[in-house]
């Protein structure tokens, strides 16, 4: 069915990338190379990815897997504005893994299954030392401090404690049960990939700026766009809070799997 629409000229890239994903999932894990590409020319600063990610992963206050940073430059009326979503970079040389006291157990670069190539966290192994949170140059990790958005309301509604499926199993976020207390970050929506769905930030991208797929597949949209438009990577983010932080591009030391078209 998707072929019917996705195959035609002018198909929504959500369908094109979904076809790419379903094709990639049929290939051996070792042959895949998941990558995300964000075309900032198309990012309209709508923050749908941020909200969609929080809703999908039931992430708590203070832990935002994918904030959108806003930049202004120039002098009126010659002004420029840019919107920069920032997920986990799923680096091939991840500092977070190197610093982890339980490297290869609590956080590690996955080598098998659908997650192969991703940086993952095993919540049960995480000793909550915060080292990874501090070392990430992209400020892409946060610690789940067991708080609720509705804490000051008359009660906490069920959607804040409902099960979610990170890493492909159910978690029910209650006080004193993991993942509260652990480090948390973007998983490329591994649980959705397993179900044949694109990451939540990709499907809800209003400007269709966010691309995802197996970049080693030259037919995939993410590979085609990366090739045609000259992708860049982020070097660092100065503060995890988009109200204060700046995103600095170029000269990345960690081999990120997230690319940008500026």
């Amino acid at each position: 069915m998707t072929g019917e629409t996705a195959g035609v000229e002018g198909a929504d890239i959500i369908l094109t990338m979904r076809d790419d994903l379903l094709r990639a999932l049929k290939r051996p894990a070792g042959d895949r190379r998941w990558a995300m590409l964000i075309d900032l020319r198309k990012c309209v600063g709508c923050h749908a990815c941020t909200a969609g990610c929080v809703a999908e992963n039931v992430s708590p206050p203070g832990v935002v897997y994918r904030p959108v940073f806003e930049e202004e430059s120039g002098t009126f009326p010659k002004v420029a504005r840019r919107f920069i979503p920032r997920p986990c970079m799923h680096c091939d040389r991840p500092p977070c893994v190197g610093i982890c006291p339980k490297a290869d157990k609590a956080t590690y670069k996955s080598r098998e299954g659908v997650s192969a190539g991703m940086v993952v966290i095993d919540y049960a192994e995480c000793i909550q030392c915060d080292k990874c949170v501090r070392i990430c140059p992209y400020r892409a990790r946060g610690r789940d401090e067991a708080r609720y958005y509705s804490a000051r309301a008359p009660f906490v509604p069920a959607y804040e404690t409902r099960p979610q499926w990170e890493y492909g199993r159910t978690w029910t976020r209650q006080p004193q049960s993991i993942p509260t207390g652990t480090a948390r970050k973007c998983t490329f929506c591994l649980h959705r990939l397993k179900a044949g769905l694109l990451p939540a930030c990709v499907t809800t991208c209003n400007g269709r700026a966010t691309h995802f797929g197996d970049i080693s597949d030259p037919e995939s949209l993410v590979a085609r766009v990366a090739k045609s438009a000259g992708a860049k990577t982020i070097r660092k983010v100065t503060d995890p809070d988009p109200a204060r932080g700046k995103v600095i591009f170029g000269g990345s030391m960690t081999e990120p799997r997230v690319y940008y078209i500026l």
Partner: protein
Amino acid sequence: MEKTRRARGAGGGGTRRGDGISRRSFLKGSAAVLGGAMLASHAARALDLVRRAEAGTLSPDEAYALSRAENILYTSCLQCNTGCGIKVKLYEGLAVKIDGSPYSPFTLVPSVPMSVPPGEAAGIDAAICPKGQSGIQTVYDPYRITKVLKRAGKRGEGKWTTIPFDRAVDEIVAGGVLFGHVPGEEGRVVPGLKELYALRDPGAAAAMAADAKAIRGAADKGTAVAAFRERHAAHLHLLIDPDHPDLGPRNNQLVYMWGRKKGGRADFASRFFADGFGTVNTHGHTTVCQGSLYFTCKAMSEQYRGGAFDGGKKFYWQGDIENAEYVLFAGANLFDANYGPPNRAARLTRNLVEGKTRITVVDPRFSKLAAKANWYLPVKPGEDAAFFQAIIRWIVDNGKYDARYLACANRAAARAAGEPTWTNAVLLVAIGPDGTPGRFLRASEIGLAPDGKGSGGARPGDLLVAMRDGRPVAVDPNDDVTPVTGDILVDTQISGLRVKSGLRIVADEARARTMEEWARLCGIPVDDIAETARKLTSYGKRAVVDVHRGVSQHTNGFYSVTCAMTINLLLGNFDWKGGMIAAAAYNAVGGGKGQPFDLARMNPGRTTRFGISVIRHDIRYEDSTLFAGYPARRNWWPLSSDVYEEVIPSIGDAYPYAAKALFTYMGAPAYSLPAGHKTIGILCDTAKVPLYFCSDILVGETSAYADYIFPDLSYLERWEMHGSHPNMPAKVQPIRQPVIAPIPETVSVFGEEMPCSYEALLLALAERLGIPGFGKDAFGPGQDLVRPDDYYIRMVANVATDGEPVPDAGDDEVALFLESRRHLPRTVFDPARWERIAGPGWRKVVFLLNRGGRHQDYRDAYHGDWAANRYGRLVNIYQEKTAGTRSAFTGKPNPGYATYVPVCDALGKTPEAAGLSAGYPLRLITQKDVTQTKSRTITNYWLLAIRPENDVLVSPADAERLRLRSGDMVRIVSATNPSGAWDLGNGRRKEMRARVRVTETIRPGVVTFTIGHGHWAGGAADIEIDGTVIKGDPRRATGFNANAAMWTDPHLGNTCLVDPVGGSASFYDTTVNLVKG
């Protein structure tokens, strides 16, 4: 795995408590009781989880549940007014995640065809905005009310008691001493609705309505009134004022106003208020949105019938930006609002990157859209018309208008020219001795006989006139047999009468000032204007001027929009692919061929409402018996309706008459209107508003002042037919349907169990008052209207059969329909009953509900180079009807053509002359932010986390002058609000204290803010229910709302500045000062 405790079928797990606020038993069990033992168990189970997942050894319980079709229901979002199709993902009856629907062209472009089965669509999520993503926070807001609240203290004091639904309805119907417990109201007798439901005889109502209409047309009002009194002597006691029968019956003293209401609920309410109760006071909120855009386009769509222009449609056009090659956006903020980011961003970003579409953005603020624009022009606020006039002048001077299109004088000529629409650009207008254009010349006035064989229906005496090769010819604009084309720029005399063609009037007006003069007014250099005009005229019919609130919400909005739309007429782009397009929606009310339920006609006892409304719309001041010279006390609105800012202030002034009861629904005029604080004092006054009841999901900014609040269903719990928007080329009908169990309490009406809701309230009032059109056999023998679904299932059946019927759902789809609704209680889901209601169309109903509505296939949205869903009629470049009206304030005639009008107050004074601007140097404007929808999304914590508060944007030059830095706090003050505060009544105030953000993204001299923060209700402040304090959450009160700084009109005294023609509330005309500290 430990499972969350969840009471199925109780609103996603809400339990009740006495105060009527829903609550989940959450921490009591899991955290406090289970403690350490469960921790160990959790940890053990979590061991090696990633690896186990990879190995595929997860139990079914652990697998992702949200992509399974049986856990997904399709409906329509209402976090703003776009109505994107959404898929709501459920887990054990709880809505846990919302995504865009692949069936909806608002969220997937192109959308998947309706033929795709829901089982396949389950695997495709489409795009929605952050508000859509956060919708469950509106629905499961801990501050929602579940029981009827009755005021226990003074209006707005925040003290309530819960009372049984039936008692509340009885009290509203019967009236009496209802608030004897409130100091000062011990003896106050509240009028009940049974007293206001005065005229109950439909026959008498129809006869009186006809005679009241005759009074309007009568030159001698005294004689006409006397005749009325004589003929209706038996019923005069039912009138508001027997000396002014044109005010209508006392029924009109029930006033109903609403904020966000869509099809379905609108029709249901119309059946109650208009056709049943018989009040003319049913007023929407159009003018707080983009009123003058609507009413300009209404004026441009008036059709020539029976010798006059009438029947205009309240609607507007937008650009088909997906196919346009050049778009001039003015005052349009499509990446933050504008129906809406998921729809319009997806249609534009790709084209921009590929260079297929180029855009210019005209805005005093460097918006997100400007950030993507090829060209940006920072216009002065309120001077859009000067910019447009310069463009018109350039186009005329350079002969770059579409002459072939504009020459067409009737339908036949348009057809011959290959045009879907035509204009009155070549028709001749009589010019008065002072040069003022008046009516179109009638052929009979110059003794001209019909030329061809007319087919448009006009009587020979009513034919209009065009000039062809210097010779007058008679024209019927509707003639589809004999093409008539005319000379375009005519200015001549016929039989001693001075006449000009419509286009000539427009051209002369644009030439009234030089390009340099226009440029000075709008603040954009001549070269930039000329370059913009050149671009606009370089892409044929694939260039558009797309305008929205930024142009319309000024005191001159009507004429500024007229100027913009006139440019589109010069381009001849209406109904063309890539041009200006109109909305198209599948019909839900029935009456079409093959549709089973003609709902408007299925109402044998309907009455005829008549009289002048409290906002005095749809009538000229001069035609009323209240005419007493100029200025009128308040405005009259012959061209506009739903003038939101007029409703409560008019009640406050008792002009034209006092209201007795007010009902509001899903609106927050106090918060959303400029100078909205002025409504609060009126609402608090029980003499001016003796009874105020409302329907709301929480105690909101305006419902906080009510006597009774009836809990309503949120958008995931109820029905509506959302309709479409003018930027959507495909024909659609998004259907909003219950997807979760209702959260309000269950009530009984007509012997039926249903959730307390807007519909339940109206049904109960109808039951008590005996209003026809509801109850047993209300639709006809054997067809009852005793439940909401009696109405809405019939509507769905109508949508399914509008035009080519949709297919029947197969057995597998029926099974999925039932399975995916397994969590819904009988009070909102009763398939056996629904099947009986729908009759033979039942499986088509299932087909549509399984997809959340009906959407035309993307490939069918165009016919060649034309839009498939066309307007297809006359578009007025000259508005004769408008020219036949006068300002009720000044008595001057309103121009019927594109013209420049400066910003001014009701009496026509500039702000300087009215003494409003001296000492207040900064122009205050406002804009939407994608994370907030005016009054009603502050409850969404995920959105609040993205923008915890708003700020006032100040240019570096202004900041330096005022010695302000980013982060400083300032009070926003104006001439009509020098203290910079909201008076919330009962001694409560809220200051407009704003955090400054210094930015290069705003034109110097202008400051702006986003609407959405600065709340005082809806969980932002403490309230007391049944003696228990419900603590507010201070996060909901952050930021500010500067609406109260916006000017109060000096003449009106209790209303913002208004566009006296198009009705818009002025949002962008006030000047303010920022006071540090």
